[in-house]
């Protein structure tokens, strides 16, 4: 049987369409749902009210990440009673409906998008959903993974499916070699800066090209993670030997003959030569530099060598007002070189940059230095496994000796639902994904950067071009 060349997305999509009723969205089968404490309680309550069961508890896992404090004392006694209730509600819901929970004291606890891949739950060709917009992270394995709201969480719990209109396809090809000090984070910040926060609305992005293939799985996850910041439904990267090497031997990866069969199936997934995308963009990796966000939207980014832009140059009145408002909130003056912007806080962690490679990269920069006296810096590993691995490698010691706090895993100051919060007016170099007003605490000012750039800023007390950093050890 001959057929049209297909994209990675189309292959995964077609393998999961249960039924496509005329004039209605396709009913898409979901292979894995990830759950956490914040967006699930109303979904379970909905099931109870309707007398429904969870159709496939074996295709669900849950963990606690958004609310949990990142100090040991804080975790033993969660002071915030509303947060504590949300966590205990998840416990009850998982027990009542038979869902495996990686609780706060589990060696597998962590940010939901970090533990999925770590445990080998995330695999190529799967459909994966979670009530969290950064679910696109799992697309780094060639899975179709997207975020959704709580009504949809309930829908998947009840039916293991989701009605979906077919998204359009968008291939972003990043060709060439990255310079030293330029990372996966800089690739995705550059893309969002170029196409805008609604540049990929309605689309699934496939990231392709030699610069993407050269990334580790950790780097690929960083790129896919922020697809939502470009408005995309999902981001995907074709599975290859790097993917298989990462997955082999993980707890829920196939073993023995099943592994061989799985690799054979996964190898059929990459986009066929000649397959058509609705949109295409090509980026030259060799031209990329470290990026820093300067505003209140992830599209407001600039190279570290640049200055804060001038709103007067905006093409429209509404955009000019938007830029002025952003600069006012950020307390920045147009024309200020970004390297002169002083910071108060540093946050290294999150589902964007809380993996072991991020810890290593930040420690490499920090080793032998001291955090600036006017900066308070924290490192929050993305999971218990990341934390254990980092400690085995002595990274925690490097951070502590440099004056960083070394914390327990969770989402932490990426969204500041737990006690890790910026004070009004504080300026933070953050490896997270959103710089919206108040994201890290009301009145707080967030600058998005890579782990390397965040570590260097912590030490210098202001942003620096990490390409010129003198590594001590």
């Amino acid at each position, binding site marked *: 049987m001959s057929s049209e060349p297909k994209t990675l997305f189309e292959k995964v999509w077609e393998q999961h369409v249960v039924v496509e009723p005329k*004039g209605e969205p396709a009913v898409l089968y979901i292979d894995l749902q990830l759950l956490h404490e914040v*967006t699930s309680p109303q979904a379970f309550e909905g099931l109870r009210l309707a007398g429904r069961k969870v159709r496939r508890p074996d295709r669900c896992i849950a963990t606690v990440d958004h609310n949990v404090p990142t100090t040991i004392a804080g975790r033993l006694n969660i002071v915030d009673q509303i947060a504590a209730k*949300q966590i205990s509600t998840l416990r009850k819901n998982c027990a009542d409906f038979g869902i495996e929970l990686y609780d706060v004291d589990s060696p597998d606890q962590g940010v939901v998008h970090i533990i999925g891949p770590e445990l080998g739950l995330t695999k190529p060709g799967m459909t994966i959903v979670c009530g969290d917009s950064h679910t696109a992270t799992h697309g780094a394995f060639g899975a179709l993974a997207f975020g959704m709201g709580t009504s949809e969480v309930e829908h998947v719990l009840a039916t293991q499916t989701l009605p979906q209109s077919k998204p359009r396809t968008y291939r972003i090809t990043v060709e060439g070699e990255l310079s030293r000090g330029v990372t996966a984070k800089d690739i995705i910040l550059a893309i969002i800066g170029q196409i805008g*926060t609604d540049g990929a609305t309605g689309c699934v992005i496939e990231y392709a090209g030699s610069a993407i293939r050269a990334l580790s799985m950790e780097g690929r996850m960083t790129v896919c993670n922020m697809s939502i910041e470009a408005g995309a439904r999902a981001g995907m990267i074709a599975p290859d030997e790097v993917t298989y090497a990462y997955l082999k031997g993980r707890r*829920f990866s196939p073993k023995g003959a099943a592994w061989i069969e799985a690799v054979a199936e996964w190898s059929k997934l990459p986009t066929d030569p000649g397959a058509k995308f609705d949109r295409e963009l090509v980026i030259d990796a060799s031209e990329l530099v470290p990026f820093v966000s300067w505003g209140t939207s992830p599209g407001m980014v600039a190279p570290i060598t640049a200055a804060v832009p001038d709103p007067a140059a905006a093409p429209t009145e509404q955009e000019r007002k938007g830029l002025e408002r952003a600069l006012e909130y950020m307390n920045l003056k147009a024309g200020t070189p970004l390297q002169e912007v002083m910071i108060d806080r540093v946050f290294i962690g999150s589902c964007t940059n809380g993996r072991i490679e991020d810890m290593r990269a930040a420690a490499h920069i920090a080793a032998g230095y001291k955090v600036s006296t006017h900066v308070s810096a924290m490192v929050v590993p993305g999971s218990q496994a990341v934390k254990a691995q980092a400690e085995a490698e002595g990274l925690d010691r490097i951070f502590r000796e440099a004056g960083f706090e070394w914390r327990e895993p969770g989402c932490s100051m990426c969204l500041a639902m737990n006690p890790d919060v910026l004070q009004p007016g504080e300026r933070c170099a953050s490896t997270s994904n*959103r710089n919206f007003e108040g994201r890290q605490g009301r009145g707080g000012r967030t600058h998005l950067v890579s782990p390397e750039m965040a570590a260097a800023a912590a030490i210098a007390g202001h942003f620096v071009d990490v390409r010129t950093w003198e590594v001590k050890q």
Partner: protein
Amino acid sequence: MEPFRTLTSLAAPLDRANVDTDQIIPKQFLKRIERTGYGEFLFFDWRQTPEGELVPEFVLNDPRYKGAQILIAGKNFACGSSREHAAWALSNFGFRVVIAPSFADIFFSNAGKNGIVLVRLSEEQVNTLMNNAKTIANYQLTVSLENQTVTDSKGFSATFEIDPFRKFCLIEGLDDIGLTLRHEADLDAFEAKHNQAGWLKAK
């Protein structure tokens, strides 16, 4: 979900682009386990000072727009986080319709599940409505989902596109899970076959 056919109401102009869901409902209100009661927290940081005083210039604090059930906003409305709490907050506050040049994808789904009608008009049309809502006292719009039109009494008239199935669900106020379960036999058959694909097993 409350069915929607036609609504005539005051329209409130929120003249900002890229309004994100962190602004619509800040994170501290996501710790609750209830589905209702979010209206008072809508745009919390924009409506109130850190000291808890109302910000008079913010549109939803302006008595002229009290009771508005239609919100007019800039492009890429409700981008960012997937929190359905944003849709709950808008709905609990009393909004049934948002008019904007574009909406973020996840919010688009969430709004549909909560009976909120999202009307996409051109930038130019939205600018006209925004200006009218700012300058004309007691400015009312009529949104007909059945006819897919937005009209006012001053001669403005526009049609909008909406997916026919989404329109049907909004008009009937239908429960999505029930709709999917019409296909339960197909689902059972699909799942039995899908279970054989070992490489797609979660665990």
